[in-house]
């Protein structure tokens, strides 16, 4: 949160309509995302009750568990769900592309994208993945073949959601709240209906009114996985009971009727969210994408390719918890990508950059003087070191010696030579290095000219190396020594799911 987003919230509250807090879109939106809206049975650990899933707005599939406490029915649900997910994933396992890096490699040309209503939906996905990936498909306690595979993919999706720059798994409330500020609190933004109410109210209503209406759980069901308690008590319980009674008395037509009534009730909770999800997809698509969105999606494709390879090569399912080494390695990766992501967003988006201008970590202004052909002769050999003076009305925190980067010339370093007041503005003298060609005269356009509007930030977009960690078998005594390698056991396969 920053003063700028806070200001956007205040404006939204005043105008009764959400306000943009990004000028461009920072997430990738797939052409055919897989929308998954799970509902869970209250009080149980990751017990699926129903789900709506599909990769096109007109193709909603409703899955229900008529007896949520029945292990067999849960696995039947998982199997049916797996068919849909695996078919969707399979679509991306056919087309490959070659990446021309230093070491050219082949990866899948696109990756699936999973869209969930909210962070709680991601948690549910993680739990569902956890409860299915260790199952076995033969021997005692066998489950349908695709269930453990589903578990591994769900775990993969849930883990990608923890990587900030990844768009592979998006909780919709988070994706929307990143781009729009509402006139309510961040806590209230977790309600997908209310959030969308602010952003895109139905005709005739202000955002505030639409949000207020969306808070009525009878009119607008919550976006799961938790259902509304009055729905549970007044609608769901009698219908589950009817299914059970019908089954006890032999099923037949009454049983079918009871199941249909249950499915209708669950569909009534899911269908409105389905509509909201696809409306949200449209809204996100309508935003112009930021310049780095595609390169981040490439990283998602790499991750997808790697995971598909793990499964193809018969690798083990993801462990329950990270070992010492993998935890440290993952943290290093997250820290690196998070820093890159922050810089990329600022470079892509003037409104995000404005937040750094606010704190003095960046400034924008106009070039008032330039020495494009300046050559430094003090060293062993002559080097091109042009200097430019930038005048800005922003606060400048950078002290002489600090190296700055400009979004428009990211490969060029600008070292602060001096900072001096210039009237009520500040004049910053910068010395440039790199990104100007190899000659002693800069390539045209590589040095900003007087009159040009420029922006400089104290952070760059440079590549950071990941640190090395010991191999897991070399885990030192300070961290518990080498971990026991994972051996699948009967216990994993048998673990009750009740």
């Amino acid at each position, binding site marked *: 949160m920053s003063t700028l987003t806070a200001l956007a919230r205040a404006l939204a509250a005043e105008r009764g309509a959400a306000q943009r807090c990004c000028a461009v879109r920072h997430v990738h939106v797939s052409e055919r995302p897989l929308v998954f809206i799970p509902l869970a049975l209250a009080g149980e650990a990751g017990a699926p009750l129903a789900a709506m899933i599909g990769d096109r707005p007109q193709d909603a599939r409703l899955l229900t568990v008529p007896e949520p406490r029945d292990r067999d029915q849960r696995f039947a649900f998982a199997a049916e769900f797996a068919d849909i997910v695996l078919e969707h994933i399979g679509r991306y396992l056919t087309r490959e592309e070659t990446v021309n890096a230093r070491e050219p490699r082949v990866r899948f040309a696109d990756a699936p994208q999973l869209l969930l209503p909210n962070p709680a939906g991601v948690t549910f996905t993680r739990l569902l993945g956890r409860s299915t990936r260790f199952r076995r498909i033969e021997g005692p306690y066998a489950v349908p073949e695709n269930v453990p595979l589903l578990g591994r993919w769900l775990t993969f999706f849930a883990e990608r959601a*923890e990587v900030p720059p990844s768009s592979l798994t998006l909780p919709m409330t988070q994706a929307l709240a990143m781009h729009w500020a509402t006139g309510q609190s961040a806590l209230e933004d977790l309600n997908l209906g209310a959030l969308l109410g602010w952003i895109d109210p139905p005709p005739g209503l202000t955002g505030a009114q639409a949000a207020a209406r969306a808070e009525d759980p009878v009119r607008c069901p919550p976006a799961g996985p938790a259902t509304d308690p009055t729905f549970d008590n007044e609608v769901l319980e009698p219908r589950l009971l009817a299914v059970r009674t019908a089954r006890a008395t032999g099923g037949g037509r009454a049983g079918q009727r009871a199941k249909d009534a249950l499915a209708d009730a669950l569909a009534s909770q899911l269908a409105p969210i389905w509509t909201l999800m696809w409306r949200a997809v449209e809204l996100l698509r309508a935003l112009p994408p930021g310049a780095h969105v595609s390169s981040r999606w490439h990283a998602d494709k790499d991750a997808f390719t790697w995971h598909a390879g793990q499964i193809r090569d018969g690798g083990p399912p993801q462990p329950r*918890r*990270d*070992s*010492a*080494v993998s*935890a*440290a390695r*993952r*943290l*290093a990766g*997250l*820290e690196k990508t*998070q*820093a890159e992501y922050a810089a990329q967003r600022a470079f892509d988006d003037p409104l995000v950059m404005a937040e750094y201008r606010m*704190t*003095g970590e960046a400034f924008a202004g106009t070039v008032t003087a330039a020495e494009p052909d300046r050559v430094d002769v003090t060293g062993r050999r002559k080097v091109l070191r042009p200097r430019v003076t930038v005048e800005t009305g922003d606060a400048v*925190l950078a002290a002489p010696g600090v190296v700055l980067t400009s979004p428009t010339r990211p490969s060029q370093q600008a070292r602060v030579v001096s900072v001096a007041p210039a009237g009520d503005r500040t004049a910053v003298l910068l010395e440039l290095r790199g990104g100007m060609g190899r000659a002693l005269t800069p390539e045209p356009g590589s040095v900003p000219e007087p009159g040009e509007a420029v922006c400089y930030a104290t952070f760059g977009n440079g590549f950071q190396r990941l*640190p*090395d*960690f*010991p191999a897991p078998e*070399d*885990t*030192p*005594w*300070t*961290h*518990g*020594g080498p971990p026991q390698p994972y051996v699948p056991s009967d216990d994993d396969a048998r673990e009750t799911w009740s």
Partner: protein
Amino acid sequence: MVMTSAAELAAGATEEILDGLATAERGVVVDSPPGAGKSTLVVAAASRLAGAGEPVMVIAQTNEQVDDLSSRLAADCPELRIGRLSASDYVPSPRIARHPNVTVTTSAADLAGCPVVTGTAHKWALVREASWPWAIVDEAYQMRSDLLLRVAGRFGRALFVGDPGQLDPFSVVQTDRWTGLTWDPMQSAVAVLLRHNPDVAVRRLPVSWRLPEPAAELVSEAFYPFTGFRSGSRAEQRRMTFTAASFGQNACDLSLETAARTGWALHELPARHTVRTDEGAVAACAALTARLLQRGPVIYSERAEAGAPVTADRIAVGTAHRDQAQAIRARLRAGGLAGVTVDTANSLQGREFDVVIVLHPLSGRRDATAFHLEAGRLCVLTSRHRHACIVVARAGIPELLDAHPSAEPVHLNVPVKFPDGWEANQSVMARLQPWKVRAP
């Protein structure tokens, strides 16, 4: 009861720690309160181990700290050959360069003959293959578990030294993926070590040579409630006087005189909710600094029994946020004052001054956040001084603390951290009340 002098107490503890090294199976952790002679212990341990023929690697967190330890070790043991591992862009500071027994190099392979090799943790993390029977890890509570993981393969046994009361290491990454794991990479090196090796002895240095008696009492009770420590000096040994008298009695003078007399002052500004860079508080910090220098303060202590002037480089202003430090610096510069250190708690860790002026992290806040409440932050700020500490704050902090909702999530299998920031803040505010000066 026999009264033990502080010096005997400290010497006894140090001796016990050093003797214990020989028998330690895996290592020893030494908790050191502020100014308790941590570096002295590190130097003594390194020379003792090296003397016994056991090569030692010394791991510190910053180049500054490595240079500090290396030069002290070089001076104390002129016979000892010391290797200083460094990155390629490191330029030896004068205090390293003047010791002939220190070899500076980028490669551990060049230091085969050195019984003691020093370097930053990040540099050590790049060393492959070679290993040492002993390591000394300095500022171990500020080192993150994942960094220890990268260097721990290099040593067999280790002495971990650090101050548990200071700021914890942190990460910009917010995730609870590893909570409850004994090897959670975001915890401190000491935490991970102790959770896997509960038998490792935790010893402590019992005497702070830096903090004067009143400071030792307050800091010990608020931030080290279970272990505690005492001051190495008696109240009458530490005095501060002013060569220039005050004209009339403005609040700044009152605060300065209170601090000179008692070691503490709470310079309280009228209650007001402010922006972070509260101009009033910034101005008060600058005014107190300026007035302090104008009054020509002289300090008397065990080190300077005849008195020594307090110069600008012996004064610090500490803040919670960088922009606050920036604003105070600008204000001092505008007033023509140079040489005073103005920095955040994070940057002041491990440093020592004669007089410290603290802009209280909660001053002017309407709500407290976990950042503002962190015990380590206030502990760092209130434990840098040898003579006096003046806390600048808007009125209303106790009320703010009382109204603070306690809604932090609790995680299973995560040891509870003490002291709790909320409680430590309450305790500090309660103890500062007698030394309150109301400023307009």
